[in-house]
């Protein structure tokens, strides 16, 4: 038997193709109507959210119920930056959604939003990731609520009224670009010797520790990286809908992301990305019977669990997975 030496292929080609796709779609944006653009942007933001939560829940096996809170941190940070900090620091530039100044500064704004969310993730994750299973779920649920209530009671960010008039700086390029970078980063991370640490922690924490893996560190790392990309997604969201309020980042938002991760098959980034896209479009379609949406969700989850889509889709996903190892070939 002969095995491929590395086992993990270099996936940078996938990253380049994905970014090229984002650029091309942005160049064609004139031909896409504004409703479709909005839905595509939401789909891309949901891919970012679901794939980043998948690192925490799917790969590392830590049940987190506060992804929307990290999203809120990114959304509010970025809204303050583009709404207050940047215009007052550089008042002579034009600050409209598509002006070159706002587009140029949008990248550092996204990164800072992500970093603030990541810092929050570190503060929450450090102590709470020593807990397991249900206890961690409860702590993260509580934390998500704390963030929401804090925002609701902070007048500087509009309290319960939220913030409006946010620059419409998010476009197809930023949204899809972020989704592609998230997918690349998390797949590249997991498909490596280092990344096996996340899976080892999920499979058996005691055995992982006995093999020299610092399990707490891996869990916190997953949490912080997940929070970073959730923060970026939050910033994109704020600059896409132009209005944010604490209610938009409540427990139901976290739950929606969890549904995407579960439907996509825990621990399968490509599957999770597909699920995020499908759910976004499904959401749009279900808008006509809005109050039955959650009922439909629940039914879909049950159906998927019965049908086990990850087993049905797995062989196809593997075929299109640029990170997958080459199959062993007989020599």
């Amino acid at each position, binding site marked *: 038997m002969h095995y491929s030496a590395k086992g993990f292929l270099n996936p940078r080609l996938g990253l380049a193709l994905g970014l090229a796709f984002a650029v091309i779609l942005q160049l064609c944006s004139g031909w896409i109507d504004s409703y479709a653009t909005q839905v595509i942007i939401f789909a891309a933001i949901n891919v970012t959210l679901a794939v980043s939560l998948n690192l925490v829940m799917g790969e590392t096996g830590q049940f987190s119920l506060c992804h929307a809170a990290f999203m809120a941190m990114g959304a509010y940070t970025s809204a303050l930056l583009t709404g207050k900090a940047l215009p007052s620091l550089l008042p002579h530039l034009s600050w409209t959604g598509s002006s070159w100044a706002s587009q140029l500064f949008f990248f550092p704004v996204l990164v800072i939003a992500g970093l603030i969310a990541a810092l929050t993730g570190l503060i929450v994750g450090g102590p709470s990731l020593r807990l397991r299973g249900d206890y961690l779920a409860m702590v993260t649920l509580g934390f998500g609520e704390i963030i929401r209530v804090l925002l609701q009671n902070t007048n500087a960010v509009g309290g319960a009224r939220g913030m409006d008039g946010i620059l419409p700086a998010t476009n197809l390029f930023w949204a899809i670009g972020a989704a592609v970078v998230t997918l690349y980063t998390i797949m590249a991370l997991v498909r490596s010797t280092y990344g096996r640490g996340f899976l080892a922690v999920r*499979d058996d924490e*005691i055995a992982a520790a006995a*093999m020299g*893996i*610092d399990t707490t560190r891996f869990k916190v790392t997953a949490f912080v990286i997940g929070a970073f990309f959730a923060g970026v997604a939050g910033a994109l969201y704020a600059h896409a809908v132009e209005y944010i309020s604490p209610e938009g980042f409540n427990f139901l938002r976290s739950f929606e992301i969890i549904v995407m991760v579960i439907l996509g098959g825990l*621990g399968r980034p490509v599957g999770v990305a597909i699920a995020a896209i499908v759910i976004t479009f499904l959401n749009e379609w279900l808008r006509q019977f809005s109050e039955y949406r959650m009922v439909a969700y629940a039914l879909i989850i049950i159906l998927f669990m019965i049908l086990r889509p990850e087993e049905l889709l797995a062989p196809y996903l593997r075929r299109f997975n640029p990170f997958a190892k080459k199959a062993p070939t007989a020599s």
Partner: protein
Amino acid sequence: MSKTPLLEAKNCSLRFGGLSALTDVSLRIQEGELVGLIGPNGAGKTSLFNILTGVYRPTEGEILFEGRSITGLPPHRINNLGMARTFQNIRLFSSLNVRMNVRASFIARLRHGLVHTVRRGRSFRSEEEEIEEAGRKLLAYFGLEEASHHPSRSLPYGDQRRLEIVRALATNPRLLLLDEPAAGMNPTEKEELKRLIGQIRSEFGTAILLVEHDMKVVMGICERLIVLDQGSVLSQGTPGEVRADPKVIAAYLGESHTATS
């Protein structure tokens, strides 16, 4: 003995509330030694393993590894210092295939962290190749290469136990703790295991502390035995000495021993 022992436990006790699992246990293991740890069910063998490897902190006493105190260190730190273990009930990483189970043991010694892993530069790839090769060699040496790409839980029972030992060895330990490696094995697999333990010692020079119920395995390969009973050391010495010790015969080997030997 003036040489610093590889592992030394000094007057260790472990209590869970009012229940005393270990009382005043002391032991020494020298470099390259093969020591058997025996005792009836509930004698505290696994508890002793758990305090040695940092799963529990001893209520009293001190544990030294190569002369340094490791009391209270977390399990991964103790492993990084050079002590690896297997588990009584197999604990493989079930979602990883055979070679990835072995690969996980290299994580603590990776030169590349997160950023290099995401960037996937040339040095990252060469390190991945090195690790793959090291893992392949280990699997080949223990006859598991054919199964490299199989899911770990699809292996036959004996092979799963063997893979656990290979995975522990891949962390490059000075001392290997085997918790009942022969449990549930048939006679052929037990013979295989004895051969494997011999191989580990000759090829890697690793010291081994072996917990085992099977007298044939223990008496056949260990140089020295420690007998635990009700949480304390009852007897120690060569297999011959232990076998002749009336306390041991009374507490553990009993009638069946006199009948079989």
